[in-house]
């Protein structure tokens, strides 16, 4: 493929990505038990008088779609950054235990310290960060070795899962409120949840734009990045913090959703390469579109049963993960 074709492909994808976000958002609002036509959406958003359709659009579908978009964007960017920082293609917040860390912190907050539940995203962030640091130290050796990172992830996931289950058994009287969250979906998410995650998500996503250059330079390897004047250790720490913030934010509202951070950045890499200037924004938009579309499918395809979106995404992501494990584990 020559440069001209590559450039054109990049341009096409940079245009298609936002378009796909808009389309998936519209589909997410239109499709459901009560189908909604395009003009009705416009009516719901602009008219001061509330019809029943408006209520469905405004109170049910719109916040859910917006949360889906933010969750997907956060998870995909978190994965894209983690893969660069760990120099490892298998790094995904769900796979390596970062999401579990966030989840445990969230469960502790909701079950043991419900009076602090307004701090849920912050707690999830802290949990994600601690998990990332543990994984980083366990698997790092001039780049996180793919085998080590997966094994460490399995162990950490198991440990955190055990603690989480233990807490839920001990506080079984209180877990009713936690259950819908735990299943990893967007069912019943409302404006309240959106306002909850929005500041964290916005900060994370905006700051991630600043992470593009350091992430690119880290791809050259630690020594090369240092020789190009980068403070590698500091940058790596900040990037881990950032990806933890994003993963924690997503987990605090949507529960444990895996593989988005793996599937989306890799699909984007295959299309336009490793350069974070394109990889990061396209992953962000692609993640947003994917989770929203998947959620729409999850709540309608098996109607009247509503699947948690995490299940659908796992069905999609797990085979992809196995494919990567087989074909690209020699990446570093």
């Amino acid at each position, binding site marked *: 493929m*020559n*440069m001209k074709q*590559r450039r054109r492909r990049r341009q096409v994808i940079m245009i298609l990505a936002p378009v796909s976000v808009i389309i998936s958002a519209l589909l997410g609002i239109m499709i459901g038990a009560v189908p909604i036509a395009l003009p009705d959406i416009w009516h719901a958003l602009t008219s001061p008088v509330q019809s029943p359709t408006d209520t469905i659009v405004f109170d049910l579908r719109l916040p859910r779609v917006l949360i889906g978009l933010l969750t997907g964007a956060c998870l995909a960017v978190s994965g894209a950054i983690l893969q660069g920082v760990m*120099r490892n293609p298998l790094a995904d917040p769900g796979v390596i235990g970062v999401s579990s860390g966030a989840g445990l912190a969230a469960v502790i907050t909701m079950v043991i310290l419900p009076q602090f539940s307004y701090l849920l995203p912050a707690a999830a962030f802290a949990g994600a960060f601690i998990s990332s640091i543990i994984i980083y130290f366990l698997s790092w050796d001039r*780049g996180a070795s793919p085998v080590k990172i997966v094994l460490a992830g399995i162990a950490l996931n198991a440990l955190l899962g055990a603690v989480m289950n233990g807490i839920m058994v001990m506080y079984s009287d209180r877990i009713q409120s936690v259950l819908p969250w735990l299943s990893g979906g967007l069912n019943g998410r409302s404006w309240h949840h959106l306002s909850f995650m929005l500041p964290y998500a916005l900060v994370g996503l905006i700051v991630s*734009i*600043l992470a*593009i*250059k*350091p992430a*690119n*330079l880290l*791809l*050259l*390897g630690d*020594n*090369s990045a*240092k*020789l*190009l*004047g*980068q*403070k590698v250790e500091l940058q790596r720490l900040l990037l881990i913090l950032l990806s933890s913030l994003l993963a924690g934010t997503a987990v605090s509202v949507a529960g444990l959703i895996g593989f988005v951070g793996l599937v989306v950045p890799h699909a984007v*890499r295959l299309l336009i*390469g*490793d*350069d974070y*200037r394109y990889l990061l924004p396209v992953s962000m938009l692609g993640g947003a579109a994917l989770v929203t579309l998947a959620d729409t499918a999850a709540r309608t395809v098996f109607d009247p049963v509503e699947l948690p979106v995490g299940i659908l995404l796992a069905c999609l992501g797990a085979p992809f993960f196995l494919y990567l494990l087989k074909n690209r584990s020699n*990446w*570093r």
Partner: protein
Amino acid sequence: MTAAETNNLTLERGMFKLMNVNAVIPKGKMTAIIGPNGSGKSTLLSLMTGLSDADEGTVTIQGKPLDNYSRSEFARVVSMLPQSKEQMPNITVKEFIEYGRAPYQPFFKQRLSEEDQRIVDWAMRTMRILRHEDRMFHTLSGGEQQKVRIAMALAQRTDLLLLDEPTTYLDIAHQLEVLDALTVLNRQKSTTIVMVLHDLQQAAAYCDHLIAMKDGEIHSAGSPKDILTRQLLREVYEVEAKVSFEGHYPIIIPKRKTIEEETTMLIVTNTSQIVKGSGEKLIERFDRIGQVERMEGFLGLEVLFTQNISEYDEVSIVTRWTSREAFQGWTKSEAFRESHQHRKTPDYILNNKITFQEVRIKRNPITDEDNAQIADTETA
């Protein structure tokens, strides 16, 4: 004037040691660091660029201690080509070289200024890779990739350029291309160049200054003609060689290491005392015992016949074998069994004794002639 100096640089990592290294890099010159694998060449470079920290000692770059540089300030003064162990990202040649401008950009900005653009073009021209600018890095050959990596270091526009084995794994055409391009850079921009080289002839031909390292210490330093001697090859590489210069180009003819060949041999002596005058009969009989000369590991056979010692004669049959196993192989062979079957020991044999002797043989494949030749060149 020195571009860089190290002062009593010491580093200990397990078995590996760097001891009191006082290296001086002359400004505006090309310096080669030579020495056997594991002698500390790469370690010295990584200490000089702050990639690792010394236990003791200091590094001074352009008159200023290394510790007083910030990472990005340092990256505008010194660039280095590390050994290529890292997997490179999937980007184009030009994008790759553009990373060389990172030390001049604010930490989040990646867009190039016009000057950046001009310098990136210059770096590609200097390394003669302009025609590849839009190709993907990983589609290039090893030699071209190396030139791209060097071009990235050039794009940093530093006064000091360090290269860790820039020519290793390249074919000779690419090696010379790389070295010529570096020479041009040195002449045109008076860039100080320091490189680890394994090819002594290239080191001497292209560089003004050599630093020879051995076991984590500097063995000697100076101009190629002073440094590159028969003595250096012997002391640093433990290689005996004939060294002469043709202009700037040294000619090194190594002498093969004197490896002592050691082999063993088994001598089997079968001595029979026989009735006087019956020797002919025994030898005739022996003639019919078969086919020993066809056995593997058989080296030779002698028959000794002694008469008139006293009241008996003596016949010794001596066979020589490469090993005991070879001899045993014969005694187990079909031919041996056949010849010894259905046969009684004739009554003229009075006494029979077999002795085994194992002999060790050392051979030295280098003849005295070779040694004489080398001695000649030394006195010449």
